[in-house]
């Protein structure tokens, strides 16, 4: 890893790290971008693997999406990552694509950035001058632009587990299985022992220039009894938190309307887990 950061320091803008190549190589193939130097991260062992960390998890940047999908610690401690992963492309893509690459690429329609934002994940970033941590809220700067500077390397992501009764759900609307989403959301809802919602996390994808939090939805949920919350009514509020653009795939208005209906459905599924849990326990 020391070699990688020193190469990045030496070549600056002329060098680009290569992770799974599932976004970078298409851009190179279509001649949309070019670099004098490509720095391949695929044989840097320290950049791979999931470790349990302070009740949460640390996922090294080069961990393949396919490995995230099947990792038991991830499924247990960060269920939203586990639920979101099968929506990324196809299994052939996930065999190569990495969690660090997804987040560093920062496609606004991408799944992991929305999950990272919803869960207040943090990014561990290294350069020749040291390491720093950046919270998700400050990580995504604009479309395809993040806090990672050209001479920096994204080393790992950290997520903390929720230590309370909680329900998690992820879903998205896409024209075909594996396509980038037109709209989607990652939802976590937590309650106190009495079943009152005291934590709500809603991250949306595909409905803005960067992943966005549905703050109006989160605020509306807090303080309600999970059993009484009307997910579809509250989901509608998400429309105000979106900033969609229209393109050939869907108009801005369609994304806003379908997206907020979808948020309602995802809330319903997260709430159903909570009420089931309460019913069983």
């Amino acid at each position: 890893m020391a070699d990688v950061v020193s190469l990045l320091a030496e070549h600056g803008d002329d060098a680009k790290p290569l992770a799974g190549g599932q976004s970078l190589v298409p851009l190179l193939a279509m001649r949309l971008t070019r670099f004098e130097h490509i720095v391949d991260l695929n044989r840097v062992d320290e950049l791979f693997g999931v470790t349990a960390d302070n009740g949460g998890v640390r996922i090294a940047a080069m961990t393949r999406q396919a490995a995230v999908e099947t990792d038991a610690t991830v499924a247990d401690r960060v269920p939203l990552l586990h639920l979101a992963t099968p929506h990324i492309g196809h299994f052939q893509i996930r065999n190569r694509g990495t969690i660090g690459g997804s987040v560093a690429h920062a496609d606004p329609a991408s799944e992991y950035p929305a999950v990272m934002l919803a869960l207040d994940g943090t990014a561990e970033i290294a350069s020749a001058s040291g390491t720093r941590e950046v919270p998700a809220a400050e990580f995504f700067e604009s479309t395809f632009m993040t806090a990672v500077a050209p001479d920096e390397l994204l080393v790992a992501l950290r997520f903390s587990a929720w230590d309370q009764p909680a329900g998690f759900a992820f879903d998205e609307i896409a024209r075909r299985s594996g396509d980038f989403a037109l709209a989607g959301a990652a939802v976590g809802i937590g309650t106190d022992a009495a079943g009152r919602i005291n934590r709500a996390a809603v991250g949306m994808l595909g409905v803005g220039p960067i992943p966005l939090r549905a703050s109006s939805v989160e605020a509306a949920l807090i303080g309600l009894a999970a059993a009484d919350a009307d997910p579809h009514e509250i989901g509608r509020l998400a429309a105000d938190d979106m900033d969609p653009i229209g393109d050939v795939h869907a108009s801005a208005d369609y994304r806003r309307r379908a997206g907020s209906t979808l948020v309602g459905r995802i809330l319903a599924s997260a709430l159903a887990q909570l009420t089931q849990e309460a019913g069983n326990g």
Partner: protein
Amino acid sequence: MADQVPLSMTVNGRTRRGMGEPRLTLADFLREQALCTGVHLGCEHGVCGSCTVLMDGEAVRSCLLFAVQAEGADITTVEGLAPDDETLHPVQEAFRDCHGLQCGFCTPGFVVSVAAFLEANPDPSDDEIRHGIAGNLCRCTGYQGIVAATRQAAAVLKGEGQ
């Protein structure tokens, strides 16, 4: 233009050496130097799936890998699935039986993907099959034959016959 670098990997059980610029894709190496022309290039940006090969047992897009990245790796192309020249792999057999192809351009990618998919999911539902083949595009068959072929291959590989 960058200097040529030596390349070496195992392709369908045989060591293959060659030379290429660092930017040479694995797909181009396999086609032009290892002469595995069953590796088809459709879109060259990861969408169509025609160039799918197994790298160390996992299905990957060979158009999105550089040949240098496969240094020392074990690559299987469609040519290497069957045990010998006289026999078809059960997935190939099933594609023939079930009309899983028309023009055949996408077929090598489908066959490799389906073989890998069935390895991981030996007993898939029809819905799982449809998701499993979603990473490969076919513009002729309408997919029904491919779904049927996948179903048949799953049964054969499980030892249930047809």
